[in-house]
């Protein structure tokens, strides 16, 4: 028996146990996310293959929907939640993950990135889907995929929340001036985008070019449909109500790992109040660059954006039109993220200071990461 080896192993176990106990007694403050501005409301839609004609968002069409397979961007997206809500509450059908067998009592979902939904529809893998713009308009109006529009998500939930700007709480408290300047520049960018959406407006062609460069769409008919389908707004006015509905839905589905009470919130409203901070937006909205005190250097912000998402076009337009420059802000966009969950993970691990992402990943990751 090699007693020396075993003694070393036992000593190692004792040392690791002691260091573990010591480390577990050290309280480490976790960074959290805070929503500082809205990016857009609505801006998504449901499409179906022309092989399944006549689908509408009318709750009395249950029979037409039963047994169909719909693509969603995934359970952590607002699109998934809206479709699930419609299927279960309006149609009275089950909303199940597709796995080869079909029943008329269910609508099935499968997770596909919106950019690939058109190809999946063509290949016959799905009967329809729900996607954000510009993919929804591209699939319905791009005349390539044999699809038609079933309806926009605005018909199912008017003014529903979609993308938001979330920031690291640590970054916000340490850099209030950066947040104010950023939000002032961002609100000015949103105003610029809204002014450029109507065809024939002075900046329309520039906006279309920003979409072509950043959202991966070339067809100008599709671009116009997509821009008109999105409600670009920075206002947080409607968000809290949407967040409360979101939290309650996720609680019912068992997707929240921690209860709000465990986290120290009385209810979903208290959580939404804590998650959204509109003070910076109120202080920044409408401010001109000259209203800020001079800074020795430009403020650099590491910011995460989603790939090929027209909802976030204002940030690209703001950079291109040098609006952020005029407020002394340099944005480092890095490589765009594929999904909102990845943006939240980057934010909470300190890789980025702020991020553009859907509101559901903010809720899910905040609660589950608590």
């Amino acid at each position: 028996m090699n007693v020396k080896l075993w003694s070393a192993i036992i000593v190692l176990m004792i040392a690791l146990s002691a260091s573990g106990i010591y480390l577990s007694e050290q309280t480490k403050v976790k960074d959290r996310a805070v929503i500082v501005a809205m990016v857009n409301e609505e801006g998504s839609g449901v499409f179906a293959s022309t092989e399944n004609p006549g689908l509408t968002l009318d709750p009395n069409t249950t029979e037409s929907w039963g047994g169909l397979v719909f693509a969603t961007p995934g359970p952590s997206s607002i699109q998934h939640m809206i479709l699930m809500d419609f299927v279960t509450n309006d149609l009275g059908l089950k909303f199940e993950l597709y796995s080869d067998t079909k029943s008329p009592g269910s609508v099935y979902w499968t997770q596909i990135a919106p950019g690939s939904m058109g190809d999946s529809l063509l290949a016959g893998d799905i009967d329809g889907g729900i996607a954000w713009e510009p993919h929804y308009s591209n699939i319905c109006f791009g005349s390539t995929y044999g699809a038609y529009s079933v309806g926009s998500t605005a018909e199912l939930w008017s003014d529903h929340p979609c993308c938001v700007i979330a920031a690291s709480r640590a970054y916000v408290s340490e850099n209030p001036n950066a947040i104010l300047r950023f939000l002032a520049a961002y609100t000015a960018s949103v105003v610029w985008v809204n002014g450029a959406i109507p065809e024939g407006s002075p900046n329309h062609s520039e906006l279309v070019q920003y979409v072509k460069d950043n959202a991966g769409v070339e067809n100008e008919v599709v671009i116009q449909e997509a821009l008109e389908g999105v409600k670009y707004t920075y206002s947080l006015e409607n968000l809290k109500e949407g967040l409360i509905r979101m939290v309650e839905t996720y609680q019912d589905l068992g997707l929240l790992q921690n209860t709000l009470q465990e986290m120290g919130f009385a209810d979903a409203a208290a959580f939404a109040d804590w998650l959204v901070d509109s003070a910076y937006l109120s202080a920044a909205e409408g401010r001109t660059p000259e209203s800020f005190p001079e800074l020795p250097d430009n403020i650099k912000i590491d910011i995460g954006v989603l790939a090929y998402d027209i909802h976030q076009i204002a940030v690209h337009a703001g950079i291109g039109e040098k609006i952020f420059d005029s407020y002394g802000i340099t944005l480092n966009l890095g490589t765009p993220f594929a999904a909102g969950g990845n943006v939240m993970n980057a934010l909470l691990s300190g890789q980025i200071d702020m991020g553009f992402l859907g509101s559901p990943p903010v809720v899910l990751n905040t609660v589950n990461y608590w």
Partner: protein
Amino acid sequence: MEEGILSRANARLDAWGAMMPYDKDNRYHRWVRTLAITVASLIIFLLVWWNLALLVGSAAIPLPMQVWDAMIDLFTYGDPVSGMSMWANISISLQRFVAGFLLAMAVAIPMGLLMGYSKTLNEFMTPTLEILRPIAPIAWAPVLLFATGYTWGPVLVVFIGIFFPLLSNTVFGVNKIDRSLVDAARTLGASNLQIFYKVMFPCALPYIMNGVRIGSGIGWMCIVASELYASYGGGIGFFVGIQASIGYWPNVFVGIAIIAVLGILTTGLFDYIHKVITRRMGME
């Protein structure tokens, strides 16, 4: 002074060692030793994990106990996101793995035997295979998923992952056959077909099994990667991707642990078959 303490401790340990003699020829002693080492290794692994999780302080690296609790919940209540049980997720991944694996065996083994047998065929096939071989099988995942659909796509990714190591080992196995065996069979009147399945295949079998063993490990990597893209019917890779997207990190670790266990079980099984065959062939 210090040297005195060390030498006294050394002597004490030697004395304890003498009190607990280890007989390597005693089966019971060997079994206890293996068990003790395994348990100690796992305890240290868990302690290191615990320390690292606390040190990093990220929710993305949960504590071992959180993962254990998540595992109990998942196997008891299933996955709340997809509504599937963990057994259903495991079953669908296993089905894809087995389908891809059987397909790779059906194509790579005959092809490898023919390429080892015929120099001309080997020379003809090599340029194409050498272009395709360095491509990581995972890179094919998005292509195959959209080209062949979500049912066959993951299966074909596994097929590619297993195909190349299996083919290389089969060709290598045939090339290693003692030519005098082939000549002897021919002298005794064996036909080409008989030489093929009575001499070449059995002689190459240990090498083929080695390819199977290596390929099975790669096959698991492929199935997980392809399921991260596609979600028809779930699967362990899909489960891991979904849980990560909603920040359910203990569940992600449960998925990772299941992949590890499935990988260990399949490679362990092939390892065992490989050992049996090499022993029977007198190649130990």
